[in-house]
């Protein structure tokens, strides 16, 4: 049974009123390329979905060119990078079209369950997780009297299956993090109290500061590599899949990043008044003597972009 058809308007389906004009030839091509009509979408609704996806990303243009409308060529380049057929199916499912749901169930339900089992590592937990997400997708959750479908947040970047897997992973990680804090403390072996803080020597203080500067000065990809490999213990192959490069490239980048961090630390130490010999001797300090917590250093600092988004 399909969800209720009460959600009919474009606003309810997450289709805002577009302000930019969509190229007609491009719209024709995209309309023919996906089975939007089979999912119960009209031509106008389909174009509105495209406009929504395009305007949300400014057709892939820089923010400085918001005032300038995208040319048909820019629009075509943007829409050809989207999974328009998946987008149309997701929106049709969000609208409650029965044929779209039948197709969604036939195509995605089994892979969804398999992905959930792979994520949780347990068939029982995986099936529970998949069913929970499936219920959410079906629109059983209501907010302010309206059915809320997570499929509305899918805008066609990447495949719908990848979006579903990532959503499952998010649900699982969030659930795990929530429930981990609820573990009983009975039998919990409390750690020994920290020793009284010792005043670090000047060399160690300089070294700590130099390390912080060197690590924070790396670019985003290098920091992601360092965190994923050294903190999370991910494999080179796993990191390479995420970045879309060969694992040998990841290995090479990691080695290069470590070398450059080491050189940068030496340089920072020298800039702080230490001789090169003294800086090299300081590099041989026992890491346990340092107060630098790389995990803390990396994970306590939010990236600027998402901090801004959070503040907005």
């Amino acid at each position, binding site marked *: 049974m399909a969800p209720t058809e009460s959600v009919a308007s474009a606003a309810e389906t997450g289709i805002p009123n577009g302000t930019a004009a969509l190229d007609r030839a491009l719209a024709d091509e995209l309309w023919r390329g996906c089975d939007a009509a089979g999912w119960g979408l009209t031509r106008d609704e389909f174009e509105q979905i495209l406009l929504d996806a395009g305007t949300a990303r400014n057709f892939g243009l820089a923010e400085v060119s918001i005032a300038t409308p995208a040319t048909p060529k820019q629009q075509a380049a943007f829409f050809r990078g989207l999974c328009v057929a998946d987008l149309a199916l997701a929106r049709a499912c969000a609208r409650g079209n029965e044929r779209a749901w039948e197709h969604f169930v036939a195509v995605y339900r089994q892979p969804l369950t398999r992905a959930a089992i792979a994520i949780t590592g347990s068939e029982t937990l995986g099936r529970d997780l998949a069913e929970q997400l499936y219920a959410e997708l079906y629109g059983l959750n209501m907010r302010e009297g309206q059915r809320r479908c997570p499929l509305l*947040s899918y805008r066609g*970047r990447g*495949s719908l299956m990848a979006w579903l897997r990532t959503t499952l992973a*998010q649900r699982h990680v969030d659930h795990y993090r929530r429930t981990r804090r609820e573990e009983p403390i009975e039998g919990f072996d409390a750690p020994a109290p920290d020793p009284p803080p010792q005043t670090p020597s000047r060399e160690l203080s300089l070294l700590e500061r130099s390390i912080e500067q060197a690590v924070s000065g790396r670019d985003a990809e290098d920091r992601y590599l360092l965190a994923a490999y050294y903190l999370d213990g991910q494999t080179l192959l796993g990191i390479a899949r995420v970045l879309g490069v060969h694992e040998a490239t990841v290995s090479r980048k990691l080695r290069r990043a470590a070398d450059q961090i080491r050189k940068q630390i030496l340089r920072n130490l020298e800039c702080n008044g230490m001789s090169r010999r003294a800086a090299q001797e300081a590099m041989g300090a026992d890491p346990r003597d340092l107060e630098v917590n790389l995990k803390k250093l990396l994970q306590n600092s939010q990236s600027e972009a*998402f901090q801004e*988004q959070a503040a907005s």
Partner: protein
Amino acid sequence: MTATSQHGFHPDAESLSALSEQALEGRERAEVLAHLAVCGRCRQVVALAREAADAGAVTAAAPPRKAIEPNAWWKQWRLVWVPTAVVAAFAAASISVYIEQADRHGPNIKVAEQHTTQGAAPASAPAPTEQAEAVPPASPAPAPPPAHAAKHAHPAEAEQMPAPAPPAVAAQMPPEPSAPEPGAVDQVEVARERPPLSGAEEQQAPPELTAGTIRPAYSQPASGAWEAKQKQAEQQRQAEVDTSQMRFRKFKAAPAAVHGANVAPPAGATETVTVTAAPPLETQPVALAEPAPMLEIKSSRGVSTPARPLQLPSGLAAVSIASGGHFLLAIDKAGALFLSEDQGATWERIATQWTGRAVAVRQQARDHGALRAAPAAQNGTTGRSSPDAGSAPSLTVFFELSNNKNQTWVSTDGRTWTSK
């Protein structure tokens, strides 16, 4: 909160999945990566989603597993099958190699020299080192099996072989030419199968005839003129080969058969013959009217295996080979047909004119007449070298090609194929 963030801090699922699918570019990718560098939760999400994608791909690609009985008896013998299979494969390979060698050397039989009943060798003539004389059979006998004849080429075994023709036929491997005999008759080429001779014919027929190819080798007892005669005979033989190939396309001279038994020059007028064994398919009736010079028919099987492995232009091994006249056709494992007109030195790929995949090619012939050897014998020439003497059989040689659906195409030149 914008569309790219969830819970105020994290990128949404679409951004993370798009990053994994390399669908983000430029600044947006850098932003997500920068967030991943500092957010263990999102790194974990991305890693779990990637592992799920890998597991899904493996599940989709893996074939369904068969239920294995826990106590299957053959599981205990699993290790025994390995050496058994190796031994069986080795035995099969050995047998195939043996059969291939037998087929390769089978058609080429050096047959004993022919002696007429006109006299014995003079005392001054050098005696042959090995010589086999077959006893004329009393009645016509069927043609010997070619492979069998090839294997029994030793003189001692020659007598045990069934005589293929009313005249005595001996097959042997003479290491040297036969003993010279003054007054020896010319050589006569006969076919493997002959119709029963009448009484007159039987009386006129030479007492001993050699099956298959009979070559004139040495006809002059004088050793001084032997070389000149040898050259002349060689030229004549070559001309005969050419003529025979043109007229008897069915009979193809094997490379080993061309080189006869002319190992040492004899002084007598003996004649050495070389037989190329042929299957019953290629037999031709021969009518012998009188003791005639031996006809020479160089015949080979319709499907002959060349002495050296075929090097097809496709680089694949040949699965079927057929030869006729100067044509050599071969089909490789991919079903491509190749034609060679120079014994495999150069190949031409034949365009596909059939449906399906060609799997076999063979030579066929339609017999429109009988071999008439008598006129050639009367003329004192070999049947092969005298195409105008009426000794040529009116054979129409053609090739048949079969595809994997048992459909057949025919061709006379190997290039143009029509459905049969």
